[in-house]
């Protein structure tokens, strides 16, 4: 079975994509991997991998339908559709039915209840999947939700399916970079994974959000490990987090201002000689130990 590891955090900007990218580079030395960016609202994994924005394959996807109103067919103005809409997405404007596409969930109740066939549910292109082979030779699959569209959870599911198609062998590995938060796209990203790496930083906000995302992790009963990024920002809180999660602690990463310069030059930390590269390597070793407790594990 292919193993799936997701990287999640609750809070945004604490280092999910940074860690996913560099773990991918470490794992790729020993295993067949695919890296999946399921942060479909703001996919940045490719940048942390130092990859250019060029793709060998791009596929537009449609996971939603939205109503198109044929006002000319609406004879009796019965108003069943706006009354029926639970999301208050339909209204009359100048004697014409209007759909607010930002409020519409695409459930199709309006179409169902219209006696005159005024409403047609039409598929919308709400996102795309981009694929490339990275400089290190492993595939990178990126999901992108088009701004203004809904259905991020479904786009996440699609991008993971695409990633699965690219791996088959036992001990192959999928690394999934999740969105921040705890809502539909995070639920879709975590739902069927074998292990979750939760990254946090020693700030009260990140610590609180770690506990929030852990409720999702526990809901699906997924084994997890905790990483503390920028650990020296607040050593007291770092100690506390480490103690709270001592059975699940994977390691810490130091605070390093040079990261911003590196990433601005498309240079992964993996390719640098920064001290934090060792921190990440240590975390990589910890995860490997947890995932393959069998010492005879198969390597590439």
């Amino acid at each position: 079975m292919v193993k799936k590891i997701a990287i999640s955090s609750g809070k945004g900007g604490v280092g999910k994509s940074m860690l996913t990218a560099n773990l991918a580079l470490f794992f790729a030395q020993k295993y067949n991997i695919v890296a999946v960016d399921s942060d479909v609202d703001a996919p940045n994994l490719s940048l942390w991998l130092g990859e250019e924005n060029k793709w060998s394959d791009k596929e537009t996807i449609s996971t939603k339908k939205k109503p198109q109103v044929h006002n000319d067919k609406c004879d009796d103005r019965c108003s069943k559709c706006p009354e029926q809409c639970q999301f208050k997405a339909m209204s009359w404007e100048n004697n014409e039915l209007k759909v607010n596409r930002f409020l519409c969930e695409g459930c199709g109740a309006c179409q169902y209840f219209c006696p005159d066939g005024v409403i047609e549910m039409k598929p919308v292109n709400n996102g795309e999947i981009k694929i490339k082979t990275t400089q290190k030779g492993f595939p990178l699959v990126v999901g992108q939700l088009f701004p203004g569209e809904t259905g991020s959870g479904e786009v996440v599911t699609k991008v993971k399916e695409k990633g699965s198609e690219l791996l088959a062998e036992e001990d192959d590995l999928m690394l999934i970079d999740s969105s921040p938060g705890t809502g539909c796209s995070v639920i879709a990203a975590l739902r069927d994974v074998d292990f979750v790496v939760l990254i946090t930083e020693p700030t009260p906000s990140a610590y609180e959000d770690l506990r929030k995302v852990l409720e999702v992790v526990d809901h699906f009963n997924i084994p997890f490990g905790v990483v503390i990024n920028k650990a020296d920002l607040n050593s007291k809180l770092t100690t506390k987090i480490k103690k709270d999660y001592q059975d699940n602690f994977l390691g810490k990463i130091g605070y390093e201002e040079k990261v911003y310069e590196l990433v601005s030059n498309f240079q992964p930390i993996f390719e640098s000689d920064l001290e934090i590269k060792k921190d990440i390597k240590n975390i990589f070793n910890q995860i490997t130990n947890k995932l393959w407790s069998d010492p005879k594990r198969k390597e590439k």
Partner: protein
Amino acid sequence: MSRIKEIAVTGGKGGTGKSTATILLAKKFFQAGKKVLVVDADVECPNDYLLLNQSLSTVVEKAYAQFPTLDKEKCRQCGLCTEACPNNAIFQAPGEYPVFNYDLCDGCGTCWNVCPYGAIIPKKKEIGKIYKNDIKEGFSLITGAAKPILEETSPVVQKAREVARAYAQEKGFDLILIDTAPGTHCSVIRALMNTDLVYAVTEPTPMGAYDLDLILDLVKKLDLKAEVVLNKAGVGKREKIEKVVRDYKLKITEEIPYSKKLAELYSRNKLSEFKY
């Protein structure tokens, strides 16, 4: 009474400093004599209360969504609801009662409206809480907090905004500042809709630039006015940010300098001591 001005603080990328900018901006307006109501609309991970050294203890309202329940006495197992459900969330074996799969149900109401016997009763389920903190005279916080494992969080955002508007009217606030979630998905859209101005907070990294482009695209589609706040100014490279800002014919109107000091104050909940 005229409508109170609403300003949203968003940014696409997580961790660019939306909450930091919200608090710093709120303080700036407050010091200029405005009565400011902050709304934390990052309902999956609300953190503004922490940055303001508050705790979430006063629930002022709850957010609900409606889900179907079955009155077996009225149900005649006709199968209309199962057939009508657009999400395939109702399962019905032959000769059995319909069963609702709440993981797939989005509460669209087709089933209870289609049922000829009134056997499906919409039932309110709590999906989140709205909290209030009065911090100083003329400086308050409304926080929306979604229940964990909730797929669709935008109704909690909606509720938080409604509560905030009513409270701001009642207490005569001059300004509502809305801190959104990261990303561009439904709950962000709900936090941005119909605001008077959007501050898009970004950072001078390629990720900041990429995500700024996405959020400004959304803001444009929502037909809203926007200004850009550059956080962590001084690190990385700002050329890419400036290009995105130019492409949308916008301006960087605020800059927050990069500082480890700020990060440390943030980590100790002492953001209010930061001067810039």
